[in-house]
């Protein structure tokens, strides 16, 4: 009786609707971002690397958009530069869409790598507690004490600019987070009855760690990952912005903002604004999805 009183499943109808809204908003944004990443190059009207005739052309006024859209879709006319063109004459609209692939691939790759490394080592560090895992934890402390920008710049200095550097820098940043989350979960799991029951039936340590501990310890890391992907996109853009990321003219949101930043004082706001909005929206989408999943998990 006390169990059903105290369980946190105290969700009223309104609460559930709120969770659903957050979940679906996040899911739709993330879905669109993924779609852009996969199909982007086939969807856009202009090649993202070929300059147009007009340099720094502003986007058409909003009032003209319905007419232009109609003319493009039904009339077969050449599409206008929806978001204008940048100082080199590249179509901002096309580049913003194609850049989704660069940013999402880097963010996802970094996440998959750091998730695998962090969760794997986290299970080991939590389940087998000895001097070697203590050493591992101190090493992860050390890694976490490096600011990610410094790490990335060192990597650029060593190996030049490229998306591999960003993936590596982000992996070094996020693996310790997954490691800590998973280890904390494992520390409570290893005391659980079913873990002891398996050991008391003669199961070996590795078998218990992989069959019982790992699957039950994934929850926190999985929730973290959707938040982390969002921040990874932000950092990818940030690293490229300061020059520690991908090489221009690769379409990439951070790089586009950086390129447009010099023109903002001249009144050319469009080359930076649209990739900026793309970053905000995508990061928000992942964060919302992560938050909704976290609440669902907690309930």
């Amino acid at each position, binding site marked *: *009786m*006390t*169990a*059903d*009183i*105290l369980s946190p*499943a*105290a969700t*009223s109808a309104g609460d559930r609707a709120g969770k659903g809204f957050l979940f679906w908003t996040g899911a739709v944004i993330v879905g669109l971002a993924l779609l852009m990443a996969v199909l982007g190059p086939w969807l856009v009207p202009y090649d993202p690397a070929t300059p147009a005739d007009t340099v720094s052309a502003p986007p058409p006024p909003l009032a003209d958009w319905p007419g232009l859209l109609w003319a493009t879709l039904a009339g077969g006319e050449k599409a206008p530069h929806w978001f204008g063109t940048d100082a080199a004459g590249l179509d901002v609209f096309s580049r913003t869409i194609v850049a989704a692939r660069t940013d999402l691939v880097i963010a996802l790759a970094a996440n998959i790598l750091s998730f695998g490394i962090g969760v794997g080592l986290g299970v080991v560090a939590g389940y087998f507690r000895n001097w070697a895992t203590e050493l591992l934890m101190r090493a992860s402390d050390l890694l976490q004490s490096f600011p990610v920008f410094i790490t990335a710049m060192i990597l650029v200095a060593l190996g030049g600019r490229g998306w591999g550097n960003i993936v590596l820098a982000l992996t070094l940043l996020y693996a310790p987070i997954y490691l800590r989350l998973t280890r904390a979960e494992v520390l409570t799991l290893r005391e*659980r*009855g*079913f873990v*002891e*029951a*398996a*050991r*008391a*039936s*003669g*199961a*070996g340590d590795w*078998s218990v760690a992989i069959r*019982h501990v790992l*699957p*039950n310890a994934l929850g926190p890391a999985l929730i973290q990952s959707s938040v982390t992907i969002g921040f990874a996109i932000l950092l990818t853009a940030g690293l490229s912005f300061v020059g520690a990321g991908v090489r221009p003219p690769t379409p990439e949101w951070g790089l586009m903002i950086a390129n447009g930043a010099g023109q903002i004082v001249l009144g050319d706001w469009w080359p930076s604004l649209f990739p900026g909005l793309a970053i905000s929206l995508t990061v928000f989408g992942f964060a919302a999805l992560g938050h909704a999943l976290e609440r669902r998990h907690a309930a």
Partner: protein
Amino acid sequence: MPPDALTATDIRVLGEGGRAVVDGASLTLTPGEIVGLTGPSGSGKSTLALALLGLARPPMRLAGGRVLLGGRDLLVMDEDEAARVRGREIALIVQNPRAALHPMLPVGRQIGRLWRRHGGSGDADARAVDMLRLVGINDPERRSKAFAHELSGGMAQRALIAAALSTDPAVLVADEPTSGLDVTVQAQFLDMMAQAARGRGLAMLLVTQEPGVLANYCDRVLVMEAGRIAADRPVRDHFAALPRRLSDAAPLVPPRSGAPVVRVEGLSKRFPVRGTDKQVHAVDGVGFELRPGETLGLVGESGSGKTTAGRAILRLIEPGAGRVEISGQDVTVLAPGPLRQLRRRATIVRQDPFDSFDPRWTIGRSLAEPLDIHGIGSKTDRLERVRHLARLAGCDADVLEHRPRDLPAGALQRLAIARALATDPDFVVLDEPTSVLTPSARREVVELLRRLQAELGVAFLFISHDLTTIAAVCHRVAVMYLGQIVEIGTADQVFRDPRHPYTRALISAHLGEDPADRRLDRPRGERLEGEIPSPIDLPPGCYLASRCPHALDRCRVERQPLRTLPDGRQARCWRTEELPLPKEGAA
């Protein structure tokens, strides 16, 4: 007939989605009467108890009914007025006493504030000290300045009742007030509470699942089922109406002859205390033997080291010293490989069945796990074996498809026992296997254990603090106190004629399930003073000396060996022969 102290009619409490948690329950409480409220978990006991104070835990809400207190309906009062009535006329004691006390205020201050708020005038601190003394707290002046975390569970519960009684309420509602407490503390507390209630003409509602508490302290018993009061009868009629009780079971099948399967000698386990060079002596020189088909009960209060002993025997934690022989092999020196092989022969069942199964696995997969680990049989053999195990546990084969959360605790615990027996072991440690179960589920587990033991001849080490269950399943009983066995003998010897002062106190604190022999109505048995000493700073002499009513100066300085008495049992007290015979038997 005195007028009723409280009359509740047609109480309805709705839960989530409009489900009725309490569905039209009515009851009356009369002054000086202790009424027990019992029923299976989820029947609405606690919710009804709260509703008597006009409260409900969200998302539940009170949907109807009347609670007449001194001629006024608590449920139609405005909130300010109801708050004045609560605490002054009707008081509540909850399950987890330490959580109910304010963590940042000394307990004396809390009692004083409550009393002031309800119109007490004068020296609040003095009133608090008086109340603490009334509920039997030693050194109440000092304790009144203590914070909640500085009190033991038993003391915190006493402080709560001191607070509740300080305003002289007419009605006291106690919701499982002793569920977290040890046996001896529980008995002392309930004695004190019952006395206070009777002495003051208090009407009391005692919510409990424990038949022992009902039998010994309640005058009348209300049984709740699915939100309704299903029965309301005097306590003797209640027990007469119960189908079967643990103590009615047939006699135990005697152990088989043959060499012992388990032999433990001088088993010790110490844990270092972090930040100091001190150690906790969790287990201190424990030794016993077990024959095939025999059950040894390991009894003791929390902190006695019984669970640690059980786990060290199976080397689930590394023992510090001593020898453990299982099926002829010395477990303490086995290499990892042979040790894993030995786990076919010896395993463990733990307290909480929901914890014992991997939440992501089906029951079938969990039951098959020991067979998979040791590669026993073909796939079809294993399936057959798993079906057989489910049948042993009294479950249909379709439970194998389910996950642990779909099953009730009792069925799950029977399945956990079946899993432990999957590889036909010689020896199983049962660590409090019935403690979180309802009385009826407990009975089923006990019956299962007895049946399986008679069929398979497996030896059990049954760890529990519940003497009723121990008496129902054990051939022999060992009593532990602060890591040591203080008395070990046959169940009859230990229960009917305990010799060690600690055993005597434990047995006398035991709440038998016989309403014809109530604790309230008989003279006090042996009791111990104070609290269990810390296992870090153990006294130089007998560990019990500081609490023992028979202690001499010699006891305080000299350790006592476990002596064999003429009747074959062993006890760790050199005064056993001189001590007066206990006035009562139990169990």
